[in-house]
């Protein structure tokens, strides 16, 4: 029962990792941009949540109503005002600019909020749990996070494959030049993609803050989890990203049980093994 419990916990953690990864996967799919600052933007969202929760006295989940639109707007502005200028055939500019951005965000957060670790008060939800079977209980909050991940991914799938905007996203991804000939404004499309990516990041950041303590330095670690989930799942597949997050979560929890203190390492090692034997991930979709 102990092991089943560990697997269930791992799957639920995987939901959070999938939320970390979805935004990264989305913008890579649409504009081949890998955002090194992704992890720091997650932490930025956690701190935004903190400011709103302490400033307005709102419950963290209610604060999402403000954090998500704010991050959406930030994403649009960031892409339109900065990252669009880095796109092109050369991979160096986007990589180095987002790397610089990552360092800037990290140190700005450090300057404003200090290195102290913070937490968003989740109230009774923090400890609420439900009994599934004899000896197997799951936390209510992790279940909510996991359900959110499923809803977000399903929603993005609908958006991508059932709406005009989704068609524009896919068209720009397949061939930006032809898309422009068809009257699509790539700059706007890319900005919307980044906006959606950061809206998901907002969700992930607030959930992260409610689940564990956070401080300005943890961004890069979250980027690495997100990246591993994307690669394990296979580039270009959103459901694959969810599976990637789950594989990572389960590996960490089981690894941590087998070798105390080695949970992160276990996650990385499983990722490397998958990279060696299935270099294109479990559900590959896109080339590149």
């Amino acid at each position, binding site marked *: 029962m102990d092991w089943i419990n560990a697997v269930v916990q791992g799957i639920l953690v995987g939901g959070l990792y999938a939320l970390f990864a979805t935004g990264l996967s989305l913008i890579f799919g649409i504009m*081949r*941009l*890998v955002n*090194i600052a992704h992890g720091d933007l997650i932490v930025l969202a956690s701190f935004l949540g903190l400011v709103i929760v302490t400033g307005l006295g709102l419950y963290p989940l209610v604060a999402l109503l403000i954090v998500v639109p704010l991050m959406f707007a930030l994403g649009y502005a960031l892409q339109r005002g*900065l990252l669009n*200028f*880095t796109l092109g055939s050369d*991979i*160096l*500019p*986007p*990589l*180095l*600019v987002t*790397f*610089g*951005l*990552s*360092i*800037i965000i*990290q*140190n*700005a957060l*450090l*300057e404003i909020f200090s290195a102290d670790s913070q937490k968003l008060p989740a109230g009774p939800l923090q400890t609420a749990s439900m009994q599934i079977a004899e000896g197997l209980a799951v936390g209510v909050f992790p279940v909510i996070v996991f359900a959110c991940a499923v809803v977000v991914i399903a929603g993005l799938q609908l958006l991508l494959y059932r709406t005009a905007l989704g068609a524009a996203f896919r068209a720009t991804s397949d061939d930006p030049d032809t898309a422009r000939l068809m009257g699509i404004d790539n700059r706007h499309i890319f900005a919307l993609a980044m906006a959606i990516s950061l809206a998901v990041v907002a969700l992930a950041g607030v959930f992260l803050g409610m689940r564990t303590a956070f401080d300005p330095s943890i961004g*890069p670690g979250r*980027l*690495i989890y997100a*990246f*591993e989930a994307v*690669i394990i799942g296979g*580039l270009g597949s959103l459901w694959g990203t969810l599976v990637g997050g789950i594989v990572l979560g389960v590996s960490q929890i089981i690894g941590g049980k087998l*070798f105390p*203190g*080695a949970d*992160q*390492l276990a996650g*990385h*090692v499983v*990722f*490397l093994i998958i*990279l*060696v034997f299935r*270099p294109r991930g479990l559900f590959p979709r896109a080339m*590149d």
Partner: protein
Amino acid sequence: MANTGTYCVTTATRTSRIGLMLMLAGVAFLSLTPVWGGRSDMRLVVEFCYFLALAQMWNLLAGYAGLVSVGQQAFVGLGGYALFVSTIFMGVHPLLALPLAAVVAGILALPTALIVFRLRGAYFAIGTWVMAEVYRLSFAQVSVLGGGSGQSLPINVIKSVASSRSDRELVVFAIGIMLAVASTGIVWWLLRSRHGLALTAIRDSEPASESLGVNNFKTKLLVYVLAAAITGFIGALIYLQKFRIAPDAAFSLIDWTAYVIFIVVIGGIGRIEGPIVGTIVFFILREFLSDLGSWYLMMLGLVAVVIMLKAPQGIWGELANRFDLHFFPVQRRLYRSDGQTPGGSA
């Protein structure tokens, strides 16, 4: 037919000869630090030297081979730990441990490369970072090396470098200077060799170079392993100067890769002079601004972002384009013996 004798192909220009003189003068000036400066100056020069060497290696990877690594701290850390393990547990002389560290880092770069080379472009970058994390977390698990809190170099090992402190500092200083000169020289030599031509071809177009008979994989692997080995040597030297190693510091992304990336981007990526200019700018900024703590890092990040957007060739790139400066020429130019260039360079 009559004209062929009057053309010649050369890489050197007049500015390159002047530039080389300037570089030699700079090296001489730094080498004489023990004469004109004190202990802290010597420490600073050593630090300058290893940052310059790290920057040359990162520039070789990113600027010439298209391998944008965010994980070079892996090899700094491996080199540092190789020094500690070989001197403490195997009784190797510390100065012998430096080349040994290069060998260890080079050997470990092979499996690392086989994994990360499966990823392309930006994903390659994050892959190298994951590998560095794996090494960091692994060393934190090894309790004989002090686990996460690290270990100091025992006094008898330190004494075996040289018996007096000033002699030891002189030895580390001399190696530092040689390291900076050698790493610059190796990059220059490599780029002027046939591998350099292959590298430039790969950077400009992978499919085209492959179709012309360049083995892209082998060329990149060669560069990656070479850069890893030299970075390992640098790591060992850094920790021979610091005497104490811990996983978080030895595999630090900020110290051994972020600063280095900023140095190369600011100085000029894809040019041998770039890391030199970048390291000078970096140290000048640091002398004046490091008290500002996180503001200093934010400013460095901002400068790098602005340069990447507005002048992607960096400070040296701008200067070189404007004044046709090439201190370390790798381009071959065609000259007519009457002194006129018949145009174009290749």
